[in-house]
């Protein structure tokens, strides 16, 4: 294990349907707002009425020229705006670009835009724009972001299905811990699904939504007995990670990255694994030098999957975490898929800083009474240590411990 001591988060950027920028996002979190509706973005429906949470029109980053804006995908535009917020807060302008890195969490990120391009050129493929040869790659986002921000240290994508965002945080932390770079930004990228992915996810029984088209606000119900699967939500978040005290100009950190873990189930399927989840939680706690009793708050994966939620509750119980407060950020944002782990790490950090925990929407009849749920209203909370969890299809389990910084 590399040394995780002293790694901190000094900048956050967030873009979700309920809030663009962390001030809006934080307000919406504590108010328990939602923007679930029948989705309208071109390429999202095909004789369907999928429910999800779509972003308002993105506000382009001022770092992007009109020429780049024309060819930047929705995923790219949102990544730039979100990265801009985190970058600016951390004060990275002027820092040695060779010592700054970027890890983007997610794969197959621009599916809707690809479907639109395919549809446009289906009858005349020989006129497909040359830029498609570049833009179909997820790593085009690395090019877009590194050129806009002058990043020269490292940049790559990491794929971990719905754990991608948290995996990016972990990989960025490892990059700083190992000395590859001084500062690394982890970005959970917006997974821009087309109707094809939505149809596939519906067919496999993972996703709720269409049956709630007339009452979209009721569709997303993590940990509730009435849940029927996840509800998609467009989202993106960026976290700036560095060693505490390494840059005099760095702002006061949100928290310390005290421990983390990535554990695999050795299972290609979407099935959750109690053994894998408990292993990830225990390893992250060990690495942080903490016991379960030290954890005040858990931000769970909580997709509202029928078996995923009960397995996760079983993992919390098996790890001795029933005393900790638990809410579900996805009840407010929807499931950001590749972005979720980064968005939820950001939500955890913002709650830690504000000393408050957000409510869990639609948690009217919990699947289990054991966790200390935060239900219909935000509550005050002195959080010293929290745990954020992400799980991805293919047996990918990640856990992240975040600890308040001693003064």
């Amino acid at each position: 294990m590399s040394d995780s001591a002293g790694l901190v988060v000094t900048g956050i950027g967030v873009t979700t349907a309920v809030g663009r920028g962390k001030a809006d996002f934080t307000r919406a979190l504590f108010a328990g707002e939602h923007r679930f509706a029948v989705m309208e973005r071109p390429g999202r429906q095909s004789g369907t009425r999928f429910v999800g949470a779509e972003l308002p029109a993105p506000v382009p980053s001022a770092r992007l020229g009109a020429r780049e804006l024309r060819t930047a995908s929705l995923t790219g535009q949102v990544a730039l705006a979100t990265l801009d917020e985190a970058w600016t807060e951390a004060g990275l302008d002027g820092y040695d670009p060779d010592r700054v890195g970027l890890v983007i969490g997610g794969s197959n990120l621009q599916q809707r835009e690809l479907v639109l391009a395919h549809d446009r050129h289906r009858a005349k493929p020989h006129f497909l724009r040359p830029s498609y040869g570049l833009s179909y790659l997820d790593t085009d986002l690395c090019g877009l972001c590194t050129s806009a921000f002058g990043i020269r240290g490292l940049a790559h994508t990491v794929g971990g299905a719905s754990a991608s965002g948290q995996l990016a945080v972990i990989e960025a932390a490892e990059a700083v811990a190992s000395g590859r770079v001084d500062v690394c930004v982890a970005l959970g990228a917006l997974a821009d699904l087309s109707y094809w992915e939505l149809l596939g996810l519906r067919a496999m029984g993972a996703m709720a939504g269409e049956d709630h088209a007339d009452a979209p606000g009721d569709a997303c119900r993590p940990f509730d007995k009435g849940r029927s699967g996840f509800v998609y939500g467009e989202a993106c978040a960026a976290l700036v990670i560095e060693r505490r005290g390494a840059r005099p100009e760095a702002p006061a950190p949100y928290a310390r990255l005290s421990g983390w873990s990535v554990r695999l189930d050795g299972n290609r399927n979407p099935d959750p694994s109690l053994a894998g989840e408990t292993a990830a939680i225990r390893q992250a706690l060990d690495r942080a030098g903490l016991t379960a009793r030290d954890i005040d708050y858990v931000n769970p994966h909580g997709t509202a999957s029928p078996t995923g939620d009960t397995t996760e509750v079983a993992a919390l119980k098996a790890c001795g975490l029933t005393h900790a407060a638990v809410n579900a950020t996805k009840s407010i944002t929807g499931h950001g898929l590749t972005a979720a782990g980064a968005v939820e790490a950001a939500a955890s950090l913002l709650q830690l800083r504000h000393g408050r925990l957000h409510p869990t929407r639609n948690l009217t009849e919990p699947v289990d009474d054991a966790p200390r749920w935060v239900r219909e209203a935000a509550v005050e909370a002195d959080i010293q240590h929290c745990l954020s969890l992400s799980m991805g299809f293919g047996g990918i389990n990640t856990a992240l411990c975040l600890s308040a910084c001693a003064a």
Partner: protein
Amino acid sequence: MTKEKTFSLIVDAVREILPELAGHDFADTDTLDALGANSMDRAEIVMTVLEEMDLDIPLVDTHGPQNLGELAQHLSDTAAVKAG
């Protein structure tokens, strides 16, 4: 398609792909390099014009012309030959 009409299509494509040139007064002697187009921009501009002309030729066949006027003449001539 006349050279003049083709030139107009090229100008439209350049303005779409390089929006900062919206107010530029284009001339035959302008070159894409001098206008600030990178290699991807140049390919996008030419492909946009080829689609507008419904002219299915390889991009490599458009690499000879040295400026916008020559490109317009070349594409106009090529379209005429293809049309028989």
